[in-house]
């Protein structure tokens, strides 16, 4: 009996030692948005399940990007898990900076992840980041204002109709502006939207020889339209309005239409955040000469830098936080309207459709995105609202400043495009593209 007791105690001590040795402390760099905050709140479930503890480094998007880029470039090894987007994942995967994630266990059910989203985060068929949520862009519009004006929003509007609606809804004296669009300079701000508009008008960033095309008639037509509609039917100071400012304007009932991220639909639909939760409807982003690349393609995803020494534990966290079970957990604990959208087929179940009437339009927009065919004319790059090359951040930032200056009336459309073309040409030459 004594021997049995001793064996039992020894087994317990051994098991506890093994558990302690296995439990890791993972450092996660993540972006500050509602979905990631929910993940942080629910992560105690992961710790309970695995014993791994988590240190959260939550940063503003631009700071996160700079911080993570520095760490990746120098192999700093400060983070075990990083939050990256569809822009970084294929580039850093190609450069061997990230741990490949194609060997996830069968229980993860990789086939349940939308193929388009998998492609966004892959290079040569190898996935380097697991999607946490995915988004496209679409049109938010006020169905009450449309009804009052005797208008009907079509399922697939074009930019000619879009301008006519903006004009009809524009009533600044009553505090309603026809349209709210991103105007704040930045490759992820105004240029995300402007690029989808240029795609719609048949334009592209580069030709097949990597020569910039910003002096093309398509860019001029798109930018002239954009400056005109914002200045005539947009809110005052539109050149300083980014996603957040427009989100606040739309939620407080100041915009007739807004083209922006599908992921904002949950916020607009939430009665505690939005005054127009019951007056808003959604439809596809407008098209013009083509409907290719009119809605952007983006995913926030979790990845493991090669410099991490805790790859196994990090993979466990990735598998948990991007799983079907996690989506269910969010749905049950926080409500289905805030479940991470756009990544898994299984998310789009009856519960979700019932709680989130915008879900079908979001799904359609996400299914329509194709980063490999985002332009009318052939291009050497992938990406819808960006060109997936390392130089694009710098190009997009500079061009974004010229475009914002054109909206603010500090320069003409021609001048903005001329300067944008020259700046892009200089960067591409310096980078050795031609």
């Amino acid at each position: 009996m004594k021997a049995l007791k001793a064996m039992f105690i020894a087994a317990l001590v051994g098991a506890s030692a093994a558990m302690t040795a296995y439990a890791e402390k993972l450092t996660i760099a993540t972006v500050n948005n509602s979905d990631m905050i929910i993940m942080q709140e629910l992560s105690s479930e992961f710790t309970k399940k695995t014993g791994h503890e988590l240190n959260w480094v939550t940063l503003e998007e631009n700071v996160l990007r700079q911080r993570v880029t520095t760490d990746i470039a120098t192999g700093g090894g400060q983070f075990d898990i990083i939050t990256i987007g569809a822009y970084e994942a294929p580039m850093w995967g190609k450069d061997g900076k990230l741990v490949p994630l194609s060997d996830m266990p069968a229980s993860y059910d990789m086939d349940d992840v939308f193929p388009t989203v998998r492609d966004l985060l892959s290079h040569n068929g190898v996935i380097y980041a697991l999607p946490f949520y995915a988004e496209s862009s679409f049109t938010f519009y006020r169905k009450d204002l449309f009804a009052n004006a005797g208008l009907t929003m079509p399922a697939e509007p074009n930019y000619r109709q879009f301008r006519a609606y903006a004009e009809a809804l524009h009533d600044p004296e009553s505090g309603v502006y026809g349209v709210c669009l991103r105007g704040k300079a930045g490759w992820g701000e105004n240029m995300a939207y402007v690029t989808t508009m240029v795609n719609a008008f048949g334009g592209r960033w580069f030709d097949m020889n990597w020569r910039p095309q910003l002096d093309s008639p398509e860019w001029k037509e798109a930018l002239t339209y954009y400056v005109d509609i914002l200045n005539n039917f947009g809110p005052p100071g539109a050149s300083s309005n980014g996603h957040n400012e427009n989100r606040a304007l739309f939620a407080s009932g100041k915009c007739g239409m807004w083209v922006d991220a599908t992921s904002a639909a949950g916020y607009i639909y939430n009665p505690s955040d939005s005054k127009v939760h019951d007056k808003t409807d959604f439809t596809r982003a407008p098209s013009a000469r083509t409907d290719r690349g009119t809605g952007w393609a983006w995913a926030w995803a979790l990845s493991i830098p090669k410099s991490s020494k805790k790859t196994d534990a990090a993979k466990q966290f990735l598998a948990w936080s991007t799983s079907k079970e996690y989506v269910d957990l969010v749905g049950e604990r926080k409500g289905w309207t805030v479940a991470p959208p756009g990544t898994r087929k299984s998310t789009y179940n009856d519960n979700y459709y019932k709680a989130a009437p915008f879900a079908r339009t979001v799904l359609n927009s996400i299914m329509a995105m194709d980063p490999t065919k985002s332009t009318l004319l052939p291009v050497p790059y992938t990406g819808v609202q960006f060109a997936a090359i390392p130089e694009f951040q710098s190009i997009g930032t500079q061009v974004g400043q010229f475009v914002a200056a054109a909206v603010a009336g500090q320069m003409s459309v021609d001048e903005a495009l001329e300067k944008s073309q020259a700046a892009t040409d200089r960067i591409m030459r310096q980078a050795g593209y031609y």
Partner: protein
Amino acid sequence: MKSNRVLLSILGWVIGFIIFFPILWMVMASLKTEIEAVATPPSFFFIPTLENYFVVQNRSDYLNYAWNSIVISVFATLLAILIAVPASYSFAFRPTKRTKFKLVWILSTKMMPPVGVLIPMYLFYKNMGLLDTHLGLILIYTLMNLPIVIWVLYTYFKDIPQEILEAAQMECDDLLKIFLYILLPLSKSAIFSTSLLSIVLIWNESFWSLNLTAFEAAPLTAFISSYSSPEGLFWAKLSAASTLAILPIMFLGWVTQKQMVKGLTLGAVK
């Protein structure tokens, strides 16, 4: 004459209010709900809530960030003062023909944008094991503030009459004793106010703290940054986090305002 004083007083209050307004606005926003914080036109009268403070405390370990800020700013300031006092003494009382050049050279290091040396510094810190450590930030903040601290102390030391030191040197040739018993009592206020200035500068610095720390040594600037977002409206929570971040330094400034003003204006009026 009296009406002039009243006018000046009113003008002073108005300017004071304008300077204080952003802080008042931030505190007000921190007591609103998110939807009230972004409302246009903004509301001045509302039912205050402490919810944002509870959310911020639940999400982040405020005390850990505050402790890191205190440790880093105090020790970096002490180290900077320890180096700057003898350096400034030497520049002020034992000048050579290269003193001016050296002073300008020291100050010129402040003119380089920090991002220009980010990658080499990061690699250096990585190889030395200084990333995300208190020591790492203390060292960089000491170096960063040294030019300002040296210049402020040098300007003050230069205003001390040379004759006092010469008289002391006739009585005693021990430099340390002269420094401890003559110079230090004379420059107590200057050293104190320079230290406060250094602490404030370190408290507010965000570039290096965001780039060289992750979790263990992250100060309050990293804490604030975690509530800023280009996608998602967290202005009320951001305001609550900012209010919590500036509270300790505002309290320090309020308690020591007399010494700070006295030290900063020493030698300004002759």
